[in-house]
Each structure stands twice: as structure tokens, then as C-alpha cells.
């Protein structure tokens, strides 16, 4: 039996729904093999992950708190991906956001207390937007490859953050880390650990959905992503859109950093490069760049994280199992994506001509 891969005339809606479901199943099976090989019962392990993520009020709260930055980074990356601009720098843009808010909290003390948080969050957006804007401008102006620049800029941002919390901005008493933000500028919690940031991110989902699907700008972004030549002929400025999209993308990633540090860590310290930016790429990819579906995906991945952390105690398994599963989900999904706009046609082996 031979086969060939043929392009479909239009994207298959059925496949867009089926493939993520199959991927989930395949990854659960493959992950099961890894677990069996390491002498653990897969079913028990999956139940333990679920319980670790949703088993009690506190656990649900942890999962929701993790979901907030993940979802925001997913949304951020998704905007750039729409243009086929491969922004893999959300991690660095997130870190810059944390640096931005910390700067305000530490040195803008002349501000009235109530203004600290809004100004701080604004600075997080500006810092993140700036960090995203640079690769955008480089791409627009000189066509410098964005994959490589955004990737490299992650590590530059992390390096700057380390320099700040280890030496320049280190609190006198601490080993590392800045002084805690003034309490008046914290984002309040309303249910256990869950803070008001969750409403900011949900509003953002709605706003982005409206912008991306209902406005002219969203339409332009889509057009550039699908066929940049056609967009150019229609008079759409590709250069300008790339730069704007990257500033917005970086700004949202920066805001994610600002919110998480104002609500959870309350300082700039070790662990600021928590991987939310990288996981955000999975969120964007799995959701097919749709903001509403991103909520489900981000919640799922956040649950996988908190659930796996619990494995160490309940199952005596290394918590790295979460990373294994996360990678395993993405691989069949990527493998399956071809079937959205292609089909496989099986043909009999060629006979003599």
C-alpha cells in the first residue's frame, strides 16, 4: 500500500475539533507507556494528577492562579502568530514586564499609593511592548529573522533580571530579590489565592476576540498571515502591522508579568522566568489562535502543572512527569495538524507501467 498527501480545497472543520481530542488520547497512551516502564500505574497517576489540580478548594485556587499568566501569554503569542510572526520571546517580554512594574514600585515612591498599581501595570505593558517591538521593528525594517531574535532576547531579559535581583536592586536584608512591593499596590484576592487578575484576563479575552474577528485591524492581521502578497496589493501596510502587532503582543506578555508579580510574588526575585512565556506558545498553538478556546487550553495546562507537582507526594513520582505529558500532548497535535488542510490518499502499489 502506498499513500500520498494531497491538499484539501478548504480547511476541514471536523479535523480541527477531532485532532486535539485524538492528540489528548494518544498522549495519554504514550505517557502511560512511560509510566508503566517506570513501574507506576498510569490510571492511578492520571487520577492523582486530576486530584492534585481540582481535588480541593485550595488546589482549584492554585490551578486558577497559574492559569492567569499562562492564558495571557497564550493570547500575546497568538496575536503575533496570526501574522505568521514567530514570536517565541513571550518569556523575555514577561520578564521585562516584571522589571517594569518593579521599577515603579521601588523608585516611583513619590506617587500617591493608589496610583502605584495602575502606573506599575502600565509600565509592565510599556516594558514588554518595547521588548516585543524591537524584533518587530528589526523584521519590518530589515527582515531580520524573528524566531532567532525573539529567542535570544529571552535570555538577555533573564540576564538583566538576574543582575537586578542579585545585585543592583537587591534588598539589603535579602540574599537575593528586591524589597516587597508596598501592600497598597498588591492585587487583592477574593477567593483564597485567586486574585482579581482573573477578571482582567477574561476581559482581555473578550476584547481581543472582538478586535481580531470584528474590526478592520483584525481582518488585516488575518489577511497578512494568510497571504501577505494579496494583503500588500490591497494596500495593507505589512511593516506597520508587524510592528504594532509585536508591541501589542509584547505588551500583553509584559502585563502578564506585571499582574503575576503584583498579585503573587510581590517582588522581582529568582524564578521570574517561570516558563509561562514558553508554555504560552503551546496555549496559542493548541487553541488554534482562538482567544475563547485559549481559556480551556490554559486551564488544562495549568491543571497539568499543579497536578504534576502533587505527584511527588502522592505517587512518589518525579514532578517532571508534567513536562513529559505536556510535550507528549503537543507532538501528536503537531503531527495531526497536517490533516486540517491535507488528506491522505491510499493507493495500491504501482504495477508495471
Amino acid at each position, binding site marked *: 500500500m502506498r499513500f500520498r*498527501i*494531497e*491538499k484539501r480545497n478548504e480547511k476541514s472543520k471536523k479535523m480541527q475539533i477531532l485532532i486535539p481530542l485524538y492528540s489528548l488520547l494518544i498522549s495519554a497512551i504514550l505517557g502511560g507507556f*512511560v509510566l508503566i516502564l*517506570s*513501574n507506576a500505574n498510569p490510571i492511578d497517576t492520571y487520577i492523582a494528577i486530576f486530584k492534585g489540580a481540582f481535588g480541593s478548594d485550595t488546589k482549584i485556587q492554585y490551578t486558577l492562579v497559574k492559569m492567569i499568566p499562562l492564558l495571557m501569554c497564550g493570547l500575546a503569542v497568538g496575536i503575533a502568530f496570526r501574522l505568521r510572526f*514567530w514570536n*517565541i520571546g513571550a518569556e523575555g517580554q514577561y520578564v521585562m514586564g516584571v522589571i517594569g512594574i518593579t521599577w515603579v514600585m521601588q523608585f516611583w515612591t513619590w506617587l500617591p499609593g493608589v496610583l502605584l498599581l495602575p502606573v506599575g501595570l502600565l509600565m509592565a505593558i510599556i516594558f514588554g511592548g518595547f521588548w516585543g517591538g524591537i524584533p518587530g521593528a*528589526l523584521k519590518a525594517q*530589515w*527582515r*531580520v*529573522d524573528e*524566531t*532567532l*531574535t525573539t*529567542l*535570544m*532576547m529571552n*535570555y*538577555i531579559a533573564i*540576564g*538583566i533580571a*538576574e*543582575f537586578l535581583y*542579585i*545585585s*543592583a536592586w537587591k534588598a539589603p536584608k535579602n540574599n537575593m530579590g528586591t524589597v516587597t512591593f508596598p501592600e497598597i499596590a498588591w492585587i487583592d484576592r477574593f477567593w483564597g489565592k485567586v486574585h482579581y487578575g482573573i477578571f482582567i484576563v477574561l476581559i482581555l479575552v473578550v476584547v481581543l476576540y472582538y478586535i481580531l474577528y470584528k474590526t478592520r485591524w483584525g481582518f488585516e492581521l488575518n489577511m497578512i498571515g494568510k497571504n501577505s502578497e494579496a494583503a500588500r496589493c490591497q494596500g495593507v501596510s505589512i511593516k506597520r502591522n508587524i510592528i504594532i502587532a509585536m508591541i501589542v503582543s509584547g505588551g500583553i506578555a509584559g502585563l502578564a508579568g506585571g499582574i503575576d508579580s503584583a498579585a503573587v510574588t510581590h517582588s522581582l526575585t529568582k524564578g521570574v522566568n517561570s516558563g509561562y512565556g*514558553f508554555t504560552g*506558545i*503551546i496555549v496559542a*498553538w493548541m487553541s488554534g489562535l482562538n482567544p475563547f478556546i485559549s481559556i480551556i487550553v490554559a486551564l488544562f495546562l495549568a491543571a497539568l502543572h499543579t497536578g504534576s507537582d502533587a505527584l511527588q507526594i502522592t505517587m512518589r*513520582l*518525579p514532578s*517532571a*512527569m*508534567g*513536562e*513529559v*505529558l*505536556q*510535550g*507528549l500532548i*503537543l*507532538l501528536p497535535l*503537531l*503531527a495531526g*495538524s*497536517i490533516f486540517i488542510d*491535507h488528506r491522505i490518499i491510499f493507493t495500491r502499489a504501482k504495477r508495471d507501467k
Partner: protein
Amino acid sequence: MNTFELITKLLAATLAMGTGLTYATLGEVFAEKSGILNLGLEGTMLIGALSGFAMAFHTGSLVLGIIFAMFAGGFFSLMHAFLTITLRSNQVVTGLAITMFGTGLANFLGKRVGPVSNNLNLVGVNLSSKFENIQIPALHKIPIIGAFFDVSILTYLLYLLLPLSWFFMYKTKYGLTLRSVGEAPRTAAAMGINVNKTRYFYTVIGGFFAGVGGAALSLSFIPSWNDSMTGGIGWIAIALVIFSAWNPGRVAIGTLIFGGITSLQFFLQASGFKMVIPVQFLAIAPYFITILTLIFMTIRSLNRQGSFASPSALGTPFAIDEK
């Protein structure tokens, strides 16, 4: 310590650290030359580091460790090749997925394949031997240059592999095939070259190198296993590929500069030397230099209208019947 001794020591540290880095970079040059960007390098190296160490620990044979690491790395790159070449998935996202999966799997298995006496944990166990430095009589006593003749067998092997790779790529028929597949796949296909088969081949070769590079860390440089022990060397290798303009001949220069910066950083930290430049700025220097190099190379190619140093078809899948 006089200046000569200091520089010699620094160079020795650079060579020890840079060996794994160079293997990975060289492998990635092969893959990218054929048009496949493999961002899974960091995860592939870590898998190599783990499988090499586990094998060497259980069999007591370093050579078996290196060979096993090589095939483990090759297998991970084969996954990347299958997804990106046969199934035409996005190379950037696939590479990141491979890195996430590889990192997770290596860290997970590192706590499951160790000796029973250590709770199945490989962290904290020691090898009975490691790849020791071999001194070449007389030569190793020359100031500064002597450091090049007091390294492990893995480094000596690079002295052969680097020039050979350059020769292979620019002076042989196979090298021409490799470059044409990355530069102009359509033309190459018209000439009767099997584009996808060639890309498969060199992506897997890249994985072999990455696996060995990882094992060079766990069996020679650090000789132990630790969670995420590659610590970003895979990403520096990606940067180094750009810095060396996709030319194996220039990889060594990049290793000496990038590896030198990194070992200088450790060196200064260890000696407690008061520095004008903060250590963290040394750590980001390779990435900063890479971005500047990339901008410079891109602008130069725009102005001259000539071809850019990077393979033109890098990152794009190839299908004969589609545009």
C-alpha cells in the same frame, strides 16, 4: 599566577566547556544547511547527557555511553524530522515541543533509572571513570597553546571533525547536494535529488552530534547527572550557528569566544574577583553578540542584493506538488 598561566588555564576551561557546545553546534549546522531548523537541540542534548551517563554508569563503559547517547540524540531528531518533513508541521513549534518533551523525559528518567541503593536516582551517583585529559608529550608544555594538547579524546576528535565537516560541505559532491537542498529545494529536486530524504539524513546526523555533545558534558566536563544540566548550552549552540554564519569552519572561532566568555564568568565568580562588568552581563553577551551579528549579516545581504548567509529555504517544508 602569572598572566600566561592564567590565560592557559582559562583556555583549558574553555576547551572543556566548549566541547559539548561545539558538537551540538556542528550538528545543528548540518541540519540547518539542509533547511531544517531544529530548536529541539536543548532537549536532545539533555537526553544525550542522561542516556550517556545512565549507560556508562550501568555498564561501566564510557564508549558504550557515548554510542548510546548518539543514538538517543539521533532518535529525538528523527522525531523532529518525521514531524517537520513528512507531516510538514511548523518547525519552530515542533522544535520547542521536542525540547519540552526531552527536558521533561530526561529529568523524569534521571530519577527512575538510577541504582536501587540511591532510590533509583541518578543525581548524586559517581562514575568509576570519566574521559580523562590526554597530554601530548612536549606540546602540552608550550605556554597558552599547550592547552590545546591537554584535552580529552572527545576534544581531539573535534580537531578532526571540524576541518573534515568544512571540507565535506564545501568541497565534495555530497556537500553540494546538502547545500542545494537548503538553498533551492525546487531546483535540487529538478536535478534529481531526493530533497526530503536528504533532509531526514542530515537532521538525524545533527541529532547524533547533539547526543554526543550532551554526553560530553555528563561524561567528561561535569561527570555527573543533574536535572536540566545542559543549562541552556543548546540555546547557545543555536546562537553559535548564526554567529558562525552556517560555516563549520567558523564554529571553532565561535566556541572559543562564547565558551571563553562563559568560562571567564565561572572563573571570575570562583576567584571572587571584583569586576567592572557584572557577571550577568557576561552571561548575556553571547546572545547580544548573536543578535548584532544577525542584524549585520541581514543588512549586508540586503544592500548587496547577494545571498544571505542563512540557507534560503531554512524553516520551510518541501512538497513537490505544492507551492
